[in-house]
């Protein structure tokens, strides 16, 4: 993995420090061209990986990448699925069965030829695979060497203790997409212990890592212990503690942990991208 991973929160009105700022960014990135423009600036500064949710608008960005193969030939996308709001809104509005019908490709009865929903009831893993395929469709022809499952799903599975779904995800991503499965979580120590207990070793885990312990469930001491002692491939996100820390002090903090492989960050201006990238390269070994 590259040391510097460019994120997409700023494009889709996600801002953990300020709802107001989030809405301003929503206006700023109304046009896909504005998003592509910032991605191009990041590429020009030497960033080659874009880590993004499977938001509907990402498919237009993917079209642009496919239409300019020469320009983006070394560019990677790390998809993070699913874009949870899409499903959450559908669940509230349509209920479970209709949501599945809407998002599983093709006719549900066609897909599950052997008895429609009776089959769905028994084969959740197959259903998960179909949903993964549906989410991955937009990335066809684009390099996706690591494929992430979003924290809301990972953490839900952890809490419900439905661990075998994690194993199923892990092997499906490896087999079907020849990619490395990645996990985003707000509960890193619990996730790592769980994955290890399932026989998944040295996993890629993206979690909040910052000096103030923001969104580090279980506590900053436990996180630091795991970063120092356990075997895994950490990606640090929310490194600025939702904007309360200065870039230098936050990246310097990450530098204390030699295990951290990559840092995920999002920014809207060339100046910020340049500054953060430089700091990451300086402090992350």
């Amino acid at each position: 993995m590259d040391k510097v991973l460019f994120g997409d929160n700023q494009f889709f009105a996600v801002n953990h420090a300020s709802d107001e700022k989030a809405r301003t960014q929503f206006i700023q990135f109304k046009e896909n061209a504005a998003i592509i423009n910032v991605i191009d600036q990041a590429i020009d500064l030497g960033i080659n990986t874009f880590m993004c949710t499977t938001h509907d608008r990402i498919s237009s960005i993917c079209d642009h990448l496919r239409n300019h193969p020469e320009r983006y030939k070394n560019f990677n996308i790390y998809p993070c699925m699913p874009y949870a709001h899409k499903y959450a809104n559908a669940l509230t509005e349509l209920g479970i069965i209709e949501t599945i019908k809407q998002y599983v490709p093709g006719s549900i009865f066609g897909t599950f030829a052997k008895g429609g929903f009776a089959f769905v009831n028994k084969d959740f893993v197959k259903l998960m695979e179909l949903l993964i395929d549906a989410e991955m469709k937009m990335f066809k022809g684009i390099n996706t060497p690591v494929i992430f499952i979003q924290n809301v799903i990972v953490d839900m599975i952890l809490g419900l203790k439905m661990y075998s779904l994690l194993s199923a995800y892990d092997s499906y991503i490896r087999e079907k997409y020849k990619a490395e499965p990645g996990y985003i979580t707000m509960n890193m120590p619990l996730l790592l212990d769980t994955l290890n207990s399932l026989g998944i070793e040295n996993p890629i885990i993206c979690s909040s890592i910052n000096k103030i312990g923001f969104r580090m469930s279980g506590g900053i001491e436990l996180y630091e212990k795991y970063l120092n002692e356990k075997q895994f491939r950490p990606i640090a996100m929310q490194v600025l503690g939702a904007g309360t820390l200065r870039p230098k002090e936050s990246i310097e903090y990450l530098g204390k942990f030699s295990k951290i492989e990559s840092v995920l960050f999002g920014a809207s201006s060339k100046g910020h991208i340049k500054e953060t990238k430089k700091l990451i390269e300086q402090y992350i070994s």
Partner: protein
Amino acid sequence: MIKGAIVGLGKMGLSHAAILGAHPCVDFVAVCDTSSLVLSAFKKFSNVKTYNDYKEMVEKESLDFLLVATPTRFHYPMVKCALEHDLHVFCEKPFSLTTQEGQELVELTSKSGLINQVGYHNHFIATFRELKRLLKVGVLGDLVHFMGEAYGPVVVKEKGVTWRSKSEEGGGCLYDYASHVLNLIQEIIGRPVEARGSQLKSIFSKGVEDAVYCLLTLENNVSGLLSVNWSDETYRKMSTTLTVIGKNGKIICDATEIKIFLKNPVKKENLDKGWTIKRITDFAIPVNFYLRGEEYSAQIDNFIDCIINKEYSVFNNFEQGLYTDKVIEFILDDSKKK
């Protein structure tokens, strides 16, 4: 270990199930729902027992508490059943569909001493707590006006019929969305005692309102506005804001930050003249397990702590939930006046 179960496995029920499952003091033993699809997932992937009849679950499992996350019209019979079986109860919001039913449940709990809590999770967001504290110490001086707002993209197109399309089942924006804001106003600024000019507007929904606007007067004689609209797609997700104006300035508070403007500084609070911004990161409530927001875990932690310590919850008890239902009721009555 405290033994608990959930009835109702919709979006909130599943989220509660995960939080309870990860809670170190809770033995989460059973779930109940009418969806065979959801139950078969629990059967196949987890160790909890599954039921499609809550009475059977309450009878068969020796529970300490029941969490009720079904559509609102089922709250009354389910909560009543749980209380009659001596179970502590966490009930999703809004509490009850009629205040008579809610009143009966409040009386049952006050006799029994059972712990009771309603899922108004905003009280577990540190910014709103800080707003309450600042108002209590009087940084704004005499209050003049307030505004309680919530906007979000729940219903943004004409849609089919679900339980949320029926006003008599509490499916509209008033019960579902505005209740959060009313409860915040009630607990942070003062209990509303009168509504005037209430407008319930349908935008895309059939049979229920998508927006609620009204003028509220509080028990402390402060008046202010309620403005709630769940068909506003300029917001990515629900966004709730309280603005309070006093003689000494103004506070604007949402789930991420508090913006304070003061005419005169308040030294003991270290607040200068002019603007001060406080962020959620300054005082977020730490949790051991995170799913969708600290507040969802923190409210369950509070409920479990209350059971362990045998102390009534100061946050979101049934009486407070019932009061919000009463406010909803008088807004509804006012909206029907010609």
